[in-house]
């Protein structure tokens, strides 16, 4: 049963320290000029931080397959929404397309 699982305090503290370190890292990296990669790096760090929170703090690491499926489905639908909105804008040339296209 997933209910009775007790995570050691050390795990929470480690995740906490990682989140603080990543916050400092993303703030410092934002000061360096990397062109379009500034955005990529900032968003990658945000995704890593969010994944740490979901996996450890929200206990998806100990949750049932059904709960995990729901979490995945939610992110999948969010991806559909964002990708379809952006592909619509880009393909109508209302927005400048990515340079590599």
């Amino acid at each position: 049963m997933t209910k009775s699982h007790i995570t050691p305090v050390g795990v929470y503290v480690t995740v906490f320290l990682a989140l603080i370190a990543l916050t400092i890292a993303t703030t410092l990296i934002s000061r360096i000029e990397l062109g379009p990669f500034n955005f990529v790096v900032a968003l990658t760090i945000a995704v890593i931080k969010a994944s740490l929170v979901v996996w450890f703090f929200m206990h998806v690491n100990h949750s049932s397959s059904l709960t995990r499926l729901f979490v995945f489905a939610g992110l999948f639908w969010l991806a559909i929404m964002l990708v379809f909105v952006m592909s619509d804008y880009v393909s109508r040339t209302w927005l400048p397309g990515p340079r590599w296209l």
Partner: protein
Amino acid sequence: MADTNVSAAEHDVGLKHHFDDSGQQYESATLGMWVFLLTEIMFFGGMFGSYTVYRNLYPEAFASTSRFMNLTLGATNTAVLICSSLTMALAVRSARLGAKKKLIFFLVSTLILGIVFLSIKYVEYHEKWVDHHIPGPGFHYDLPQYYHQAQILFFLYFAMTGMHALHMIVGAGLLTTLIVMASRNRFSAQWNTPVDMIGLYWHFVDIVWIFLFPLLYLIGNH
């Protein structure tokens, strides 16, 4: 055999009769909470989508606004929220262990950190008010060529951080309820589902801020 199971289940604290056992009841609550959080993801996702569209339309104007964002306060608030997520996770852990005093201590800590976040947010909003960075007739921007486009970013800033702050206020109310329930000995190691569920909510609100911080404060910071 079946009869012994039923009588054993009836003695489970907090078990509603329409569930087989407390494990199934807990599983249902978790799944229901996640379904609610998914609707929240889509709700905030719509705003993140409009942010993405306008940021791609007016990249220079959006980047120019970052110098008017208070990065120190934004980064501090990020740290405050991460601390509150840690105390919330420890509150859930204490609840599962049935440690009442620790549970109340961590819930109160989380509530205080939430109030600190909202107070810092108030200072930031006040700065925007003084600097005439509230979209509308009184809007003023140092770069006149971006007058209209920058307003869109500030509108999104207030819409997104405002909805996030509203979620924090709701979260503070929920935490207060939990503290009252905990002090009335409503939770035990056998039954503490509300602490768990509100913990999920609190972490979700933290995640929204994890994305708001780089998008609103760090763009064009270099």
